[in-house]
């Protein structure tokens, strides 16, 4: 066989060569998609043969057609855009404020002493419990949704940033000072980059929470947006539409997660593989 002809280079001489070794090849990439397809086929067949009423559990094929119809005739794209806008505006706000405050808390003992108690008090409050208050302050428009999204995302970013800054290797700071780094340079070129992987972990959590918060908020108060459409469909027992919107949310989730994985690999590219 051809395997006998393969030349496997000793690892020591080629530390950075691309993985050519058979054992390093990713041969499980198709497991996930195939499992999903199998699951959908089972669902389709089970519902058809079991005569389950559509109002309880529509077939996957009907869900897909409904989703298409919603995009084609009910302007679902506008709702999707609106929801994404709310999620990402709030998420961005949480990221900027969270990283900024976190850097400050992680490096200033005085500021940390002040802010720590506030964080400890606010962090465990279920952010969704702030909904009535936020409605009183911001109404039910975009400002309210963005505030909800930002509040949900703020703490994971903030807390991870503080942790990331604190766990910075003291030796790296000494080495930088030895080479003549100023206090500001130590922050910018050592502490912040050392915290990036941890901060990135916080951002991942934050985006997930922002999505939950915005959809939940829309279900409560909004007329437009995916959460609002989901709630409205449920109230008139349009189970097909409910599933279609859930499917769309799942697709959005998969896309965002995969994008984060890619970005995460880039951020962590220096880690030895």
């Amino acid at each position, binding site marked *: 066989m051809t395997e006998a002809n393969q030349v496997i280079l000793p690892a*020591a001489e080629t*530390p*950075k060569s691309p993985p050519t070794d058979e054992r390093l090849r990713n041969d499980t990439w198709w497991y996930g998609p195939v499992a999903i397809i199998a699951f959908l086929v089972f669902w389709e067949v089970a519902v058809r043969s079991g005569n389950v009423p559509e109002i309880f559990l529509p077939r996957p094929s009907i869900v897909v057609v409904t989703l298409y119809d919603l995009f084609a005739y009910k302007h679902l794209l506008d709702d999707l855009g609106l929801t994404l806008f709310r999620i990402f505006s709030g998420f961005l706000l949480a990221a900027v404020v969270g990283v900024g405050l976190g850097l400050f808390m992680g490096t200033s003992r005085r500021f940390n002493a002040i802010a720590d108690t506030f964080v400890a008090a606010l962090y465990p409050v279920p952010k969704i419990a702030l909904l009535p208050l936020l409605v009183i302050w911001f109404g039910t428009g975009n400002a309210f949704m963005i505030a909800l999204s930002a509040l949900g995302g703020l703490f994971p970013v903030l807390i991870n940033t503080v942790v990331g800054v604190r766990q910075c*290797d003291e*030796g*790296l700071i*000494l*080495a*930088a*000072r*030895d*080479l*003549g*780094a*100023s206090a500001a*340079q130590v922050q910018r*070129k*050592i502490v912040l*980059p*050392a915290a*990036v992987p941890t901060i990135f972990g916080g951002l991942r959590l934050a985006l997930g929470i922002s999505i939950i918060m915005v959809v939940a908020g829309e279900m409560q108060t909004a007329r437009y947006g995916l959460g609002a459409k989901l709630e409205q469909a449920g109230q008139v027992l349009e189970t097909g539409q409910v599933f279609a919107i859930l499917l769309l949310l799942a697709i959005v989730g998969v896309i965002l997660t995969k994008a984060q994985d890619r970005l995460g690999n880039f951020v962590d*590219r*220096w*880690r*030895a593989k």
Partner: protein
Amino acid sequence: MSSLGTRFEAISIEGLSHRFLSRNKPPTTALADVSVRFPSGKVTSIVGPSGCGKSTLLLIMRGLVKATDGQVRFLYGNGSGDVTVGDAPRMATVWQAFNLLPWRTVMDNVAFGLELSGMPTAERRAKAADAIRAVELSGFENHYPGQLSGGMKQRVGLARGLVMSPDVLFLDEPFGALDAQTRLYLQEQLSTLVESSGKTVVLVTHSIEEAIFLGDHVIVMTARPGRVAATLDVPLPRPRTLDMQKEPAFGDLFTEIYGLLREEVRKSMLN
């Protein structure tokens, strides 16, 4: 910086003491009344039992830790015997734990100090490339530290210090984290490098052989609180070669240093 007509002569430590404060323990005295001189152009080794404050002494000389008492002076002479106290010369440190920035490539690690001083990219890269060549790491410029062996990492650490063209090079247990063969090889490399450059070197180590092999002088320290037990000259010619370890002078000095350290090591283990 030395002004015109004056030359860096020595680092002089005078009556240096250092205490570490601790929240729930009485303060520890790391160094007690240390007075010693590190002449320029020479390699001075510091040996002592672990915890004797030799690394702390290095951090204090380097200006990274402020001593509780005493002074570090940088002496300059004009050739006629007059000595004046001046500003610190250019200094760089090589660390036992390497302390390379893991998210930067070899090139960007070596160029880091020059980058901090605001040198333009092309210029600092050219200088860094020279330093990388000097430690025999050409071809690894774009590797990350995580992809290198311990010996290679420490050569990056050495290049990162050398690229700053320091007058004084501090080596804090530079080969302590390496295996025996790598250690020997790097000791030889370092010895050659030091002999050709004429730099002032302060080497902190717990290896007596290393202290003798690389040093012109050996300072022996006591267990905590660290004091100077003795300052000894190394009666071996340069360039140093590995087979000098078989010479009687080497063995005699080793025995003398170990004799001084033996009791201190025992004490440090009881601490």
